[in-house]
């Protein structure tokens, strides 16, 4: 099962993830004007929300490693060194 964490400080409340998610995992929290995860079980880890989020506010934990495996060793090496 996928665990989704929202960084509320980063979320800009644009609602793009709510529009984009094919499985309606997200909903807008009208009070806070931030996104919230409502159907975590339905997440299929397509990461389309990652792609659309302008603030990189969400982090998916425990997803299948192939989704995040960058085969280019040069890029992987540099990613680890960026501070």
């Amino acid at each position: 099962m996928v665990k989704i964490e929202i960084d509320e400080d980063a979320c800009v409340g644009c609602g793009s993830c709510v529009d984009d998610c094919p499985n309606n995992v997200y909903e807008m929290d009208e009070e806070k004007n931030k996104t919230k995860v409502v159907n975590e079980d339905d997440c299929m880890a397509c990461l389309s929300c990652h792609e659309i989020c302008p603030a990189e506010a969400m982090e998916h934990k425990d997803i299948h490693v192939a989704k995040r495996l960058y085969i280019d060793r040069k890029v992987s090496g540099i990613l680890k060194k960026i501070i």
Partner: protein
Amino acid sequence: MVNLALELLASCAGCEVSILDLHEDLIGVLEKANLVYAPILMDVKEIPDNIDIAIVSGSVRNEENKERLKEIREKSKTVIAYGTCACYGGITCMADLYSPEDVSARSFSDNPSTESSEQPSEVVPKLLPIVHPAGDMAEIDFYLPGCPPKENLIKDVLVPLLNGELPNVPQKSVCADCSRTMEHIEFDKVHRRVEGEPKPDICFLSQGYVCMGSVTLGRCGALCSAAGVPCHGCGGPSMDILREPSHDVYNCIINRISHISKMPHKDVEKQLYDIGHIVYGFVIGSTIMEDKKVSLIPELIKK
């Protein structure tokens, strides 16, 4: 004590000055570090041996830069590529849009803003065919993008490194720090940055301005957008863009404008002009950005 060296290659020296922006925190840094070499601050001409941490800023534009970078790499235990020029090429790599001959001619023999003179043939180091980020020409231990990295970030990174620890700093995009509200408003015209007067509280993208914030690594506090200027992307590509092979600053910014405005992708692409400067301005020299299959950099640069 840690032996600290600052080296500037082809750069504006803004990165070195940004370290001075630490102000009072500089005292704490200098208690732990011995500044052994810094051409912009000290009168030491040659790179000393036994450097622990070398902070290298700027790109490799000419043969002297190349030699200096090689020498400081050999004499240092840890090399930090400091600033966007050293990491991804930054502004200096926009020279790749022109040939070295054109660049020299513009500076000396065909300069419209001063009296023209002959191009110097002695003392001046020979230009390389293209500009390289320092990170592409030497083994680098850490990359710290930013134009320049802001003082809070430098403090959070430099102090742990001097203590022999790994820094832990956020790696979100500029939007995470921006206080403007992103709204989904339909429009069919992408504005130039000089056109009109943008509203102060609404996201630039929602108003039809090309703002690079969502595809740019932040930690700058979104200073430009707070001052009414759209993000130019000076922090280099965001971590998501670097990580995903099919993501590029160009296609991601087009996607986002299209998503907000409901304009078809092709319409947005037609309205974007001069993408070498506006979209790829700070990453055009980077080989990792150029190597992406979706990148337009190979079409833009002249080798």
